[in-house]
């Protein structure tokens, strides 16, 4: 079951194409990463899902139904550009935003209070927002995205500007809510933060989707049978040139402990077990690790350029 389906969505501003025929399926109970460099079209897609801007072509399906204005109540949103009314009191600010999401009355107030207690801001209920530290305001913004028990939460660059303590707090809350049935979409240009948290990802570049799927499968698909060997000893140059097992040697260096560190790209049909006896003849092995490509590496290999270029 998918919480959200984006079907062939296109959007342009004037002659500038921002999204070109994008399709995504976001499975329930997962943390979904929407990856891509700045300017790829991620925020535009998010705004379309949130009904903030309209799409030119395609459609959005939410919980099996064509997206409607009132469905946004079931969505939580932490925008990339985020702020609060500085002069409002914390409590009334939260109650106001909850009301706009359709959550009113004493139950709403209790819920908000519970969240503020959990995040350690409850004592600030009657203080003005501007009196809060940056970190506390960030926590408030995160609570705003989740306080109305949405089915689906969109977090746009959630960790930029967050201090490390809050990042961990938020990450663990995201996992907790995911385990309770909430689906998350995490949009970011920092691939490594998605790497850790996401179950599935898609990559967008210059208005086009370049990749999507389950994170583990993607990384396995893109793994190139590269192993890193750390050992104490010496391979003779003859051995190094030996290419019965490997295609190439990617790196060969001495690490900070004086150990040799060498990366072999094995031939496609070679398993690491096959080559171990050979390595053992030449020295003491400390570790052997498969080098699985990071999302960043995969992105670079796909679009043939670096993410920030």
């Amino acid at each position, binding site marked *: 079951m998918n919480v959200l389906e984006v079907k062939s969505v296109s959007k342009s*501003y*004037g002659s500038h194409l921002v999204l070109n025929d994008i399709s995504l399926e976001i499975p329930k109970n997962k943390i979904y990463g929407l990856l891509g460099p700045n300017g790829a079209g991620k925020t535009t897609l998010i*705004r379309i899902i*949130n*009904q*903030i*801007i*309209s799409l*030119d072509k395609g459609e959005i399906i939410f919980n099996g139904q064509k997206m*409607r*204005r*009132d469905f*946004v*109540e079931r*969505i939580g*949103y932490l*925008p990339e*550009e*985020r*702020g*609060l*009314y*500085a*002069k*409002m009191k914390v409590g009334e600010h939260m109650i*106001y*935003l909850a*009301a*706009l*999401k*359709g959550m*009113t009355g004493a139950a709403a107030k209790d819920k908000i209070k519970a969240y503020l207690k959990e995040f350690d801001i409850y004592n600030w209920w009657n203080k003005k927002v501007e009196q809060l530290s940056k970190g506390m305001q960030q926590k408030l*913004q995160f609570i*705003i995205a989740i306080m109305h028990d949405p089915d689906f939460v969109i977090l746009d660059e959630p960790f930029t500007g967050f201090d490390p303590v809050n990042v961990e707090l938020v990450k663990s809350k995201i996992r907790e809510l995911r385990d309770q049935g909430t689906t998350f979409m995490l949009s970011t240009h920092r691939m490594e933060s998605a790497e850790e948290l996401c179950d599935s990802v898609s990559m967008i570049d210059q208005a086009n989707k370049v990749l999507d799927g389950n994170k583990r499968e993607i990384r396995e698909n893109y793994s190139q049978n590269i192993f890193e060997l750390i050992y104490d000893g010496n391979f003779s140059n003859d051995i190094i040139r030996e290419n019965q097992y490997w295609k190439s040697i990617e790196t060969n260096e001495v690490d900070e402990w004086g150990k040799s560190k060498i990366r072999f790209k094995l031939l496609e049909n070679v398993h690491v077990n096959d080559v171990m006896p050979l390595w053992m003849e030449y020295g003491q092995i400390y570790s052997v690790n498969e080098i699985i490509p990071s999302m960043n590496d995969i992105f670079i290999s796909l679009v043939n350029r670096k993410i920030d270029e």
Partner: protein
Amino acid sequence: MIFLFHSSIEKSMNKFKYIINREYSIRVRKRTFWILTFLLPVLYAGLIGFSVYMSMNPGYEKQQVTIIDYSGLFDNYFQDGDDIKFSYAESGAEDQILELMKEQKDFHLLVIPEFDINSPATFKLSSSKNSANFVEGKLKHDLATRIKDERIVKLGLEKEVIMQLDPNISINHEKVGPAGSERDNTDQSMAVSTIAGFLIYMFVFIYGSLVMRGIHEEKQNRIVEIIVSSVKPFELMMGKIIGVALVGLTQFFLWVLLIIGITFIGMKLPDLGVQNAQAGMDSFISGIATLNFPLILSMFLVYFIGGYLLYSSLLGAIAAAVDNQSDMQQFMLPITIPLIIAIVAMQAVIRAPHSPVAVWMSIIPFTSPIIMIARIPFQVPPYQIVISIALLIATFIFTVWIAGKIYRVGILLHGSKITYKDLWKWMFYK
């Protein structure tokens, strides 16, 4: 499903109410709102109090005037008044009196030389420092009257005959209209016009810029994206415009109530013995009472709301479009020019309320809120009012629609410098 749909409309209305409520309550709770609300009536009370005080307390003591008369014409002629007392001194006492005067306040010496009543004479008045200025005028008048009487006698004329030459003129000025003739109230109309026109100008400016600042603030501190993920941008914009309008109306009604209250208390003041000031005020107030106040007040509300919607929507669109304050000034200027033209033209319009310029400016929607309200006390033909209001409504619907288009795009856009071409393009975005 059908149930869901109905409840969604209801929910949307509720959210709109929450927005209006927030926009209203945050402003009404501000100290500055109450300060301004009470300051104006206090100024009004102060003004009334001051004029009453002035009429009771002229601000100077009784003036002492000593006369030295060499002509002999003015023996026992000068009569003491409320604020002036005369005394006579011997000839040749000038130096002695002048020496005494140095130490005195409100002391005057008039020296009347011998003179020929047929040729102009120069009289010498010496006054101690810090004395009242009206004395010279009063003396001039009294001297002239006496000399005139003397000339009449000399010419062998009868004083009564001369008196008959002085016509006593009073004009009973009335205005003739379809409803018959009525008492002229031009002075009162002009006063009410000026106040009403200026109030509309002030209201549109003050509350228009409140809308502008509110939108600018939301854009600058980036709360807006969270809000528009719950309600439509247009609803947020209209919620703000309506919320601020309600603040304005609240303030207006409080002013009306307070001013009526203060006036009522002021009316009770004759007990304190201020008949003097009252007499002039009474005829003015009875003139005001002949104005059509229900019409003026209801038109005031119509033109305030119309003008406010027109200008605040345009100012709001600008605030949504631009990023920084200095760009805002640049876009604001062309919008506020018609308002400024209207307030400048208002004085001329009040002097000639039925001139073609006045009629046209009261029909063109960008100036009509000020100019029409200034014309209303002078009995504007109903068809002109109808056309003017219809055009105003059509125009503000149009400007609100345009503003909604610009707002929707601009509010989420940061970092780029906006041109009129951009604004034009945004109106056609889907």
